[in-house]
């Protein structure tokens, strides 16, 4: 296990890493709202991308509109990273205001280095007790010595120098961002950068990055919510109606101008009831449509999701999950909408539920969800979450999902004997575009005959229920239903979904590096369940660890309801808002070694 180094003296570790360079370095920049911590973090992430590294930046913030606490939580690495690390190697505190509110989100180790401004108050006890080394850097005073100098630029330069990011590149990124603000501002930032770099030389060493991979390749800097929007665009979404809600709002903010450029339209609805029904209307009229929301919004949409199932109207609802129930913790992540997404519809209502398992995968999964919804004429719920949606990552360009034929449209050949809900072998019936002569029909939430005429007869109900179930069950979802890592013969498997996949993936890789052969299975397609596929994926597995981020073991219950699991099952299920860290998962695997 990769925890041995924690027993060494911190300075010793830092010296070793400073010489050889580490594969990954984690750092946090914290400050009260407005101090520029988040901005500094974003710049560091961009610099890392430009330098050829990979990275991840999560945001920790309170529910305040402006002000309050803010922390940029970064992890930079020489290879793609999917999860926050177990602890931070470097913590730069612009000030200690409100620190207690997110202390739990900032685990430190003996090797960690903490930079504190002595003029911004005492170092909190939690920091001193962590065993981390603390070094003073009078960032505010230093900033004042430069005309127009800013505290966060000093911090930025110091952090970049300590972890081994090229400071000239920081200057380039800053210059590009500040370009429009004039020469005086540029000069001030250059001077502050130079000063920060200079003073950092006298600081104790911190963990430094090894050189980036030689063949860098293309890099995207993207948030999960942006990737979701891009996936929707790539899938041909032409209409979006949505009501703003944290943490899904960026999907809409990003899509509004992007849709305008690609020939689509976004409407800000008066509420989630209207949003989902507008999406139903637009899809009925022939345009692939989507809405994005979070838990409370999904609850409001559930009646109309039933309508979409019954009327076989394709649509996609992206739920960027947050801590619940009710208003819960709007700015922080949790995987607790699984229950409502899977079971929240009234009646027997077969539908699709998918979950992206990484930031880049938000693109893949959303694009796939749109394609599946269109093909299968049914609503698809995409369960993203705050940890994916509002985090930014430096990634290699994500792959595209398998191409699918689009919506099966009625043709003129069917005119005058058209049956909107024709009972077919696949369960998929040709859908007319309103305005066509001869293929008119009334889409209906009422149970209906194949022609679409309301019917309360048992035979019609049974036939249509079976048809709607069949089209989802009979479809070949291919290999994208899950991500599987590992080899035949692995006797331990880790089964997870969504954002919990990040730390699980890292835990599996660490375990395998240490000789503990663990298979990773991350379900991307949650509904319909694929029992045969999972049985094959679990072949030879004797022990299973389920990893999820909910208090009520929602995923484990979902698995038990739909799948045959190995004899020995352990569950790591913890609610948000703290992320699950790889070491926690490893700790659960070790007894099985």
């Amino acid at each position, binding site marked *: 296990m990769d925890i041995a180094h924690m027993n060494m003296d911190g300075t010793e570790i830092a010296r070793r890493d400073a010489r050889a360079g580490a594969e990954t370095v984690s750092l946090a920049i914290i400050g009260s709202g407005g101090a520029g911590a988040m901005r500094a973090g974003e710049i560091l992430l961009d610099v890392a991308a430009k330098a050829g590294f990979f990275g991840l930046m999560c945001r920790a913030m309170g529910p305040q509109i402006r002000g309050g606490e803010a922390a940029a939580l970064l992890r930079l690495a020489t290879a793609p990273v999917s999860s926050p690390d177990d602890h931070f190697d470097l913590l730069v505190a612009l000030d200690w205001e409100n620190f207690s509110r997110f202390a739990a989100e900032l685990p430190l180790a003996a090797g960690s280095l903490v930079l504190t401004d002595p003029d911004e108050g005492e170092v909190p006890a939690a920091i001193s007790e962590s065993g981390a080394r603390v070094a003073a850097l009078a960032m505010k005073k230093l900033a004042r010595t430069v005309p127009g100098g800013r505290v966060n630029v000093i911090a930025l330069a110091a952090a970049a120098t300590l972890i081994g990011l090229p400071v000239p590149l920081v200057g380039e990124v800053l210059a590009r961002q500040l370009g429009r603000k004039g020469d005086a501002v540029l000069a001030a930032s250059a001077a502050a950068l130079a000063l920060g770099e200079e003073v950092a030389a006298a600081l104790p060493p911190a963990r430094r990055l090894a050189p980036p991979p030689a063949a860098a390749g293309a890099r995207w800097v993207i948030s999960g919510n942006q990737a979701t929007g891009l996936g929707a665009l790539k899938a041909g979404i032409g*209409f979006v109606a949505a009501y703003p809600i944290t943490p899904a709002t960026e999907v809409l903010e990003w899509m509004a101008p*992007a849709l305008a450029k690609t020939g689509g339209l976004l409407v800000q*609805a008066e509420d989630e009831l209207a949003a989902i029904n507008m999406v139903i*209307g637009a899809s009925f009229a022939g345009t692939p449509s989507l809405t994005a929301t979070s838990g409370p919004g999904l609850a409001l949409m559930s009646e109309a999701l039933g309508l979409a199932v019954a009327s076989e109207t394709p649509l996609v609802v992206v739920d960027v999950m947050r801590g619940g129930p009710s208003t819960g913790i709007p700015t922080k992540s949790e995987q607790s909408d699984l229950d409502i997404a899977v079971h929240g519809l009234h009646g027997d209502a077969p539908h699709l539920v998918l979950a992206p398992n990484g930031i880049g995968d938000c693109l893949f999964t959303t694009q796939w969800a749109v394609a599946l919804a269109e093909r299968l004429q049914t609503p698809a719920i995409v369960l993203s979450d705050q940890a994916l949606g509002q985090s930014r990552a430096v990634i290699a360009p994500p792959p595209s999902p398998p191409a699918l034929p689009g919506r099966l449209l009625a043709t003129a050949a069917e005119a005058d004997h058209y049956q909107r809900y024709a009972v077919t072998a696949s369960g998929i019936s040709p859908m007319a575009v309103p305005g066509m002569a001869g293929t008119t029909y009334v889409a209906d939430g009422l149970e209906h005959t194949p022609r679409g*005429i309301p019917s309360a007869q048992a035979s019609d109900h049974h036939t249509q229920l079976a048809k709607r179930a069949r089209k989802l069950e009979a479809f070949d979802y291919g290999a994208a239903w899950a991500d599987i890592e590992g080899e035949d013969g692995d006797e331990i498997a880790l089964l997870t979904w969504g954002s919990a996949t990040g730390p699980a993936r890292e835990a599996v890789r660490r375990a395998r590096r240490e000789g503990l052969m663990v298979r990773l299975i991350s379900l991307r397609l949650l509904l319909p369940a694929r029992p045969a596929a999972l049985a094959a994926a679990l072949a030879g597995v004797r022990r299973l660890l389920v990893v999820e981020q909910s208090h009520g073991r929602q995923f484990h219950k979902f698995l038990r309801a739909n799948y045959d699991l190995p004899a020995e099952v352990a569950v790591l299920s913890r609610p948000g808002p703290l992320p699950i860290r790889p070491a926690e998962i490893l700790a659960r695997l070790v007894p099985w070694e």
Partner: protein
Amino acid sequence: MSFLPKPKLHHPELAINDLGLSRRDYEGAISTLCAGCGHDSISAAIIRACHELSLPPYRIAKLSGIGCSSKTPTYFLGAAHGFNSVHGRMPSVATGAYLANRDLIYLGVSGDGDSASIGLGQFAHALRRGVNMTYIVENNGVYGLTKGQFSATSDRGSTSKKGVVNTDSAIDLVGLALQLGATFVARSFSGDKAQLVPLIKAALQHPGAAFIDCLSPCVQFNNHHGSTKSFDYVREHNEAVNRLDYITGRDEITADYAPGSVEVVVQHDGSTLRLRKLEAEYDPHDRTSALAYLQERTMAGEIVTGLLYVEPEPEDLHRHANTVATPLNALDDVALCPGSAALASVNAALRHT
């Protein structure tokens, strides 16, 4: 759900319109509503309006929610497209459909429960956005489908069939529509086809949000003494401010009227509305005075009907959204494909350095 198809036997002397269609081609299934229901009269008025306008049925999308009123689209325009949605959300489905396909004629049929209670928000926002549709509320002041509860348009002091007095204030959908910016606002009565048919025709041709509040007595649960939505009550208190004759651009005005008693309103598409004034001082182009007049006459116990407000050159949602004339659902790959330059600009937006 019973569905009784009508036999398609045409009387040889049935009037044929410009499309060669008779009134029968605009009908739907046989109504399953109670005999004498006001809603059936409204369905008949819709059939007549569409037939007289020679609208191709397949170019019409009829939309509804839940309730007795929302069942009626089954009984008219059997050859039209449609969506029977969930309770209160018809306006949203219409909004989305209209944005995706602006070429269809949208006819929303709703009731007072559907639009004044559960869907009040959606009603309000469809009108304020200016969805180009005809929005008819078949207003009977009662929940018929669930057998007789008060609705939000029941007048304070009116009684239920069982004698319970309604203590809540009524929501006046006409007042709301005026305030929310609907560009065609009318009130009519299912028992006055001469008034209703031209209003529906004018509303269907109106290129903006057209709202008709149509009083439609419920013979089963709200036609008793003590109700303010009964046939007798509405007939006694009906005060029409004008009479509308709907004329297409081709027709000539032949009848003679006293000077000053007729106003000719030419709509954007060239269609002509001829308004015969019954109330000399009423101005159907002044939102503010229309609201004041309505309020005043309502307090006096009158039910004001007629074309209460019309804006001949309305703006609508597509104009606000600055969309192209081609419907979104008909834009093909060539039209939509933004080319590498636009994709590059989308990609550039992701570039923060």
